[in-house]
């Protein structure tokens, strides 16, 4: 059977419940056993006393023969319970002096003479009433010399045991179920409490993703039994992080190393006079340059925790970026304009990163809008920047995906690598800012960036 209870809490509770049940049963059995032992020894003692009483009542008659002469109280007691309490007395020659019933007399006559050490015996289904008897046989001195006295009491009269058990149940056993319940409750509670840090650790674990690879599970307060697991997981995360860092560094280095040869290719192409094919080649190389630049940007965003705590003037950033990109717009027969606030708009962030984001948005807009139209960058006084184009717009079904790395719209004439908007998203995320894609009336797309005010 592979079936196992997975909940530690439930398993502990069930096992503890079973333990308590078995322990309770053992206690009851033990109690009955010791009660019956006590009852037995009390009965033995009673039988011995009875035998002594009988021996004391034997004397010699006028014929010098032993004779039982019971006091009236005892005589009454014995005659009231003829089958209950039986006895037989023999003299030193083995002759029956007195027997309470003929059966006990007959039996006693067959027994060897008793010893002065009491010997206890049991009789099964004895006599006309077929009852079980326990009795004692002992040699006792009397006025008529040594006698073998046999006294037996019908058993089944376990009143003593019953009363002891009853006393146990009423005085002690009643508290066992509540005690068990309480113990289970305490166990369940303590298990739950000691597992709380593990819940905290798993909450932390669910927050670990590529962007937050530095997070570790908390080791404080974790129960000693679970600590090795947490420590091992943390060590595994350390190794993963190293691997991540190596891979990121590799991406950055690879992109970096590509730059010099690309520069040389670009420069050599620039020195060649040529035809349309050469132009196409130059365009292709320019595209590759851009891709390498974006890869480096991505690698940098991945590997560095961006410092987003400086005051940034969105208007100034927008002015510089629009100014530096204006010649690109002109060469594509487009115009670009900066509108909105004409005064400093301060937010908290990283100037270079925000400029990067804006540059990518503008590049995206320039690539998607038709010649002769205008790309408009607007800075809002509340810490917003929007970039609007007059292109075909972005279909609603594509909007959730455009910020994925290497995603490219279908049938889009632009031939970027699909990294630009992913870079924008990374920067937006690092700033705790938001970005939305909207339709521009009457035509085009508008990206709205909203930063936290300084």
């Amino acid at each position, binding site marked *: 059977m592979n079936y196992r209870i997975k909940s530690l809490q439930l398993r502990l509770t069930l096992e503890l419940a079973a333990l308590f049940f078995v322990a309770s049963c053992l206690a009851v059995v033990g109690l009955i056993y010791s009660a019956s032992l006590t009852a037995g020894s009390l009965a033995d003692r009673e039988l011995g006393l009875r035998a002594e009483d009988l021996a004391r009542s034997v004397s010699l008659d006028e014929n010098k023969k032993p004779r039982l002469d019971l006091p009236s109280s005892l005589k009454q007691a014995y005659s009231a319970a003829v089958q209950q309490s039986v006895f037989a007395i023999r003299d030193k020659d083995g002759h029956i002096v007195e027997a309470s019933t003929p059966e006990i007399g007959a039996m006693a006559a067959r027994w060897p003479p008793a010893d002065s050490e009491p010997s206890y015996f049991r009789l099964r289904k004895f006599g006309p009433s077929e009852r079980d008897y326990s009795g004692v046989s002992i040699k006792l001195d009397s006025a008529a010399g040594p006698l073998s006295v046999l006294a037996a009491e019908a058993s089944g009269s376990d009143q003593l045991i019953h009363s002891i058990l009853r006393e146990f149940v009423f005085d002690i056993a009643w508290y066992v179920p509540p005690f068990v319940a309480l113990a289970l409750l305490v166990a369940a509670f303590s298990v739950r409490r000691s597992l709380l840090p593990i819940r905290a650790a798993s909450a932390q674990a669910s927050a670990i993703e590529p962007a937050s690879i530095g997070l570790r599970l908390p080791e404080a307060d974790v129960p000693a039994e679970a600590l090795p697991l947490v420590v091992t997981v943390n060590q595994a995360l350390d190794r993963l992080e190293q691997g991540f860092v190596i891979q990121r560094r590799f991406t950055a280095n690879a992109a*970096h190393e590509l*730059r*010099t040869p*690309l*520069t*040389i*290719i*670009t*420069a*050599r192409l*620039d*020195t060649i006079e040529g035809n349309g094919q050469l132009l196409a080649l130059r365009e292709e190389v*320019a595209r590759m*340059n851009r891709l*390498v*630049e974006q890869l*480096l940007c991505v690698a*940098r965003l991945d590997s560095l925790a961006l410092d987003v705590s400086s005051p940034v003037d969105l208007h100034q950033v927008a*002015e510089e970026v*629009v*100014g*530096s990109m*204006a*010649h690109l717009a*002109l060469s594509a027969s487009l*115009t*670009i*304009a*900066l*509108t*909105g606030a*004409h005064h400093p708009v301060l937010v908290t962030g990283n*100037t*270079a990163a925000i400029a990067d984001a804006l540059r990518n948005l503008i590049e995206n807009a320039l690539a998607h809008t038709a010649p002769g139209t205008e790309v408009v*960058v607007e800075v809002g006084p509340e810490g917003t920047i929007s970039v609007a184009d007059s292109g075909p717009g972005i279909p609603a079904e594509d909007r959730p995906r455009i910020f994925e790395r290497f995603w490219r719209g279908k049938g889009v004439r632009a031939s970027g690598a699909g990294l630009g908007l992913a870079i924008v998203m990374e920067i937006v995320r690092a700033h705790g800012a938001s970005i939305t894609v909207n339709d521009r009336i009457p035509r085009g797309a508008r990206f709205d960036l909203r930063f936290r005010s300084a």
Partner: protein
Amino acid sequence: MRLLVIEDEDRLSGILKSKLGAIGFAVDIAASGADASAALELINYDAAILDLGLPDGDGLAVLGATRQAGKGLPILILTARDAIEDRVAGLNAGADDYLTKPFAMAELIARIKALLRRPGGVLGMTLDAGNVRLDTVGRELTIAGIPARLSRRELTILEQMMRRFGRIVPKAVLEEKLYGIDEEPDSNPIPVHIHHLRRQLGTAGASLLIHTIRGVGYILAETKA
């Protein structure tokens, strides 16, 4: 015009030399920081192109030492490092401009020329753009070889735009230059001057266009053939 290219990648420096040579620059090449320092000490270059990643140390050290020696030649940093800290460090150490690899040769040339066109630069005396020539000392303007006259303010605007030919001239820069001209308050805003300038350039047959980048400034460019 003599340029020093400080670059350890000899394929790249070779191309730079031939390309810059083709447009009239005399180019010397230094492949290390030590060579560069020696060359800069001996010869009065008009500008230098400095790669920050040099085999015998940081290019920033060469830059610092040159500025320490009191040399004010325009220096353009060329770097494969594009971390913003590196750019800032370069500009703080006295660089005049920077360009990250990979770059387009046209961009490099445009930037070098812009540096040389600064006042005091080797190209800063007589500015050429398209068929327009401006002698900044004599304040003489010729369009297609014919002397032309502009108002003082329009000439100032044109000069600023010719110094930054092909690149953005922020409106704020123009305003600053104009208000420095004389005490007489200028009643006309910049767009009015630009409007006049455009009309006069057009009338005189200049091969130049002034593009307005709304909200930012203006770009002077050559008319497309």
